[in-house]
C-alpha cells in the first residue's frame, strides 16, 4: 500500500508544480511580448547612437545618458517638475484621505454611487477635462467672473490660468480617482472598532488619524503613490495647455526630444532615467509603507 502511495504523491507534486506554470504561461508570454520586448528595444535605442535614426547596426554609447544628465536645462526642468508633481500629489492625498474615509465609513448606501461617480469622472476625455479647467480658471472664467460679481476682486486674477498653479490644479484633479480608490480599499479592511477603542483610550481625532488611521492605510497610500505620483512626472498635455510659459515639465522635454528634435535616442535615454528614478521612488515608498503596515 505504501509503495503504491509514492507515485500518487509524486504525481500530485508534479501536478502542483506544472499547473501554476501552465496557468502562468500565457500571461507571462503576453507580458514578454507586449511589455518587456518593447522595453528592451527602448533600452537598446537609449544606448545606441542611431539605431532607428539612420544609423547602421548597434553602436553602444553612454553619450545619450551623459548628455541628458549633464544638460543644465534638464536639471532645471527636473526641479520644476518635482515641485509641481509633489505639490499635486500632496494636494491629492489631502483630498483623497478624508474623501475615502467618508466613502468607507460614513456614506452608507451612497458608497457605491460615489465610487461609480469617481470612476465615471475619470472616464472623461483628458483634453475635455483640461479645456473645462481653462473655462473655469480663465480670465473670463467662472471663478474670476464669480469673484468679481460678488465684489471680492475688481480685476480678474490672471495667475489662475497659464501658470504653475494651473498645472498643479489640473494634475491634482486628473488622477484623483486613482488616489482615492486604493486608500478606500485599505480603509475597508479596517475594523471600525479600532477607532472606538482609540477614542475610549482618550485619543483625539488627530491622534487617531496619526496613530491609527494612517498606519493602517499605508499600503493604500503606497499603491496611490505608485499609480499617481510617477505618472505626474511624465504628463505633458496639462503643462502644454494650461502652463503658459511657466509649466514646462520633464514630459515636455521627452516630447520635444522625440517629436520636435527627432532625437529618439536622447528621448529614450531620458525615459529610462525617469523610469529608474521611479523604480527607486517605488522602493523607498514600499520600504516606508512596510515599516508601518504593509506586511500585515
Amino acid at each position: 500500500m505504501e509503495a503504491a502511495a509514492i507515485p500518487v504523491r509524486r504525481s500530485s507534486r508534479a501536478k502542483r508544480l506544472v499547473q501554476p506554470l501552465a496557468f502562468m504561461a500565457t500571461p507571462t508570454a503576453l507580458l514578454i511580448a507586449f511589455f518587456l520586448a518593447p522595453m528592451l528595444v527602448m533600452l537598446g535605442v537609449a544606448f545606441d547612437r542611431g539605431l532607428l535614426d539612420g544609423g547602421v547596426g548597434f553602436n553602444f554609447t553612454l553619450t545619450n545618458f551623459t548628455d541628458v544628465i549633464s544638460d543644465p536645462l534638464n536639471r532645471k526642468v527636473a526641479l520644476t517638475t518635482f515641485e509641481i508633481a509633489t505639490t499635486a500629489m500632496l494636494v491629492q492625498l489631502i483630498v483623497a484621505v478624508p474623501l475615502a474615509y467618508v466613502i468607507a465609513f460614513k456614506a452608507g448606501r451612497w458608497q457605491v454611487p460615489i465610487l461609480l461617480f469617481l470612476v465615471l469622472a475619470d472616464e472623461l476625455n483628458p483634453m475635455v477635462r483640461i479645456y473645462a479647467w481653462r473655462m473655469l480658471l480663465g480670465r473670463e472664467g467662472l471663478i474670476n467672473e464669480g469673484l468679481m460679481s460678488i465684489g471680492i476682486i475688481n480685476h480678474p486674477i490672471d495667475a489662475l490660468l497659464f501658470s504653475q498653479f494651473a498645472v498643479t490644479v489640473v494634475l491634482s484633479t486628473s488622477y484623483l480617482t486613482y488616489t482615492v480608490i486604493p486608500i478606500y480599499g485599505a480603509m475597508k479592511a479596517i475594523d471600525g472598532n479600532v477607532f472606538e477603542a482609540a477614542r475610549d483610550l482618550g485619543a483625539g481625532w488627530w491622534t487617531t488619524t496619526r496613530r491609527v488611521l494612517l498606519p493602517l492605510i499605508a499600503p493604500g497610500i503606497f499603491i496611490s503613490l505608485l499609480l499617481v505620483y510617477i505618472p505626474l512626472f511624465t504628463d505633458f498635455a496639462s503643462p502644454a495647455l494650461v502652463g503658459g510659459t511657466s509649466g514646462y515639465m520633464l514630459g515636455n522635454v521627452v516630447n520635444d526630444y522625440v517629436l520636435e528634435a527627432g532625437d529618439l535616442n536622447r528621448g529614450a535615454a531620458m525615459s529610462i532615467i525617469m523610469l529608474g528614478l521611479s523604480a527607486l521612488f517605488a522602493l523607498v515608498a514600499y520600504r516606508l509603507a512596510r515599516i508601518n503596515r504593509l506586511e500585515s
Partner: protein
Amino acid sequence: MTRPGAAALGPLAAVAIVVIAGCGGGGGEGTADVAPPPDDPSAPASGTLSVFAYQDSITDQLLDPFRQANPDLDLKTAGFGSNDEGAAKMAGGFRADVVEACLDEMSAFTDRGLLRPIDPDGIEDWDDLVFRDADGVRDGSDVLVVPLSAGPQGLIYDAGEIPPGEIDSFADLFDPAYADRVAIEGDYALPAIAETALSLGIEDPMNLTPDQLDEVTQKLIDSRDQFRSIWRSDADVVNLFRSGEIALADGGPGLTERIRDTGVDARWVAPEERPLSWVCGFAITADAENTDAAYKLINWLASPQAQAIRADDGYVVTNPKAIPLADPAARKTADPKSIANAIPETEPPDYQEWVRAFREFQAQ
C-alpha cells in the same frame, strides 16, 4: 492658416510607439530610384494607399472626391503634428505611401532617406505649380516633393481690444502695452525664433549667427511675462482669442478667418518687416508600395479643383488655375502673389540649436 500642433500623445507613449514600430524595421533604407508614374494615368487606382499628413491636409472635404473617383482604392489616412514627429515615426517603422513634407523641414525626411524621388512628368499640373523651384523641392536634380499649399505668417489681433492701425510689426508681440495678452506659436521652434529675430531688426532670420541666436533667446526669456500662452494648434489659438485670454498672436489669414467665425473681430496684418511664409507639399515615401495611387492622389491634390478647396480653407494655393474656382472672398488670400514678398521659411542649418533655444525659453 498655420500648420496644426502636436498630437496629444504622452511623451513616454510617443517614445514607446516609435520604438515599438521600430520592431518592424522599415524606414531609413530609402531607394534612390525615381518612383515610376502609372502607365495609365486615367485608370482608377486600386489597392491600399496610406497617407500621413497634417490633419488639415487630409480632410474629407478634400479627399472625398478622390475616393469617389477611385472606388476600389482603400485610402487610409493618419495625421501628425509636425514633420519631425512624422519623420520620427516613419523612421521607427510607421509605413506610409505618401507623406506631407514642408520645405523648411525637409531634412527630417531626407537625412533618414525616407523619400523617393518623383517624376515631374507624372504630375499633370507640374508646370503650372508655383514654388516648384523653391529651395527644398529638389535634392540635387531629384524632385522630392510636389508643393501643394502655402501661407503667410504675420500677426492676428482682436480689433475689439486693440484699435486697428496699432499693430504693424513683429515687435508688437513684445510691446509691454500688450503684456499678458499675447500668445506665440510653439508647436515648433522656427516661427517664434524667426519672428523674434525680425522684431530685433535682424534681416535674415533664417540664417542666424550663434550670437544672434543668443540675442533672440535672451529676448524671449526676458519677455516671458509678455506671453499669456504658447499656442500649439489652430484650435488652441482660436480658443485663446474666443475666451478673451489674448488679443494678439502670430498666425496666418486662414487662422484669422477661423477666429472670426467664433465672433471675435480678428484682423490679420502683414508686419512691416515682411511676413514669413511656409510651403508644404506631398512626397512619395521610400517604402511606398502603391506608387500608382500615390501619383493619382498627388495629381488630384495639385488639380485646380482640389486646390480651390484648399483656397476656400484659407490656404495660399500653388496652382493659380484654382483661383477662379475658389470662393470670391478667398481669392485674394489664395493668390500665390500674396506671399511674393514674404520671407520663405527655410530650414536653418543649425535647427537643433533653434530647438534648444526655444526649450530654454520654455524652461525658464
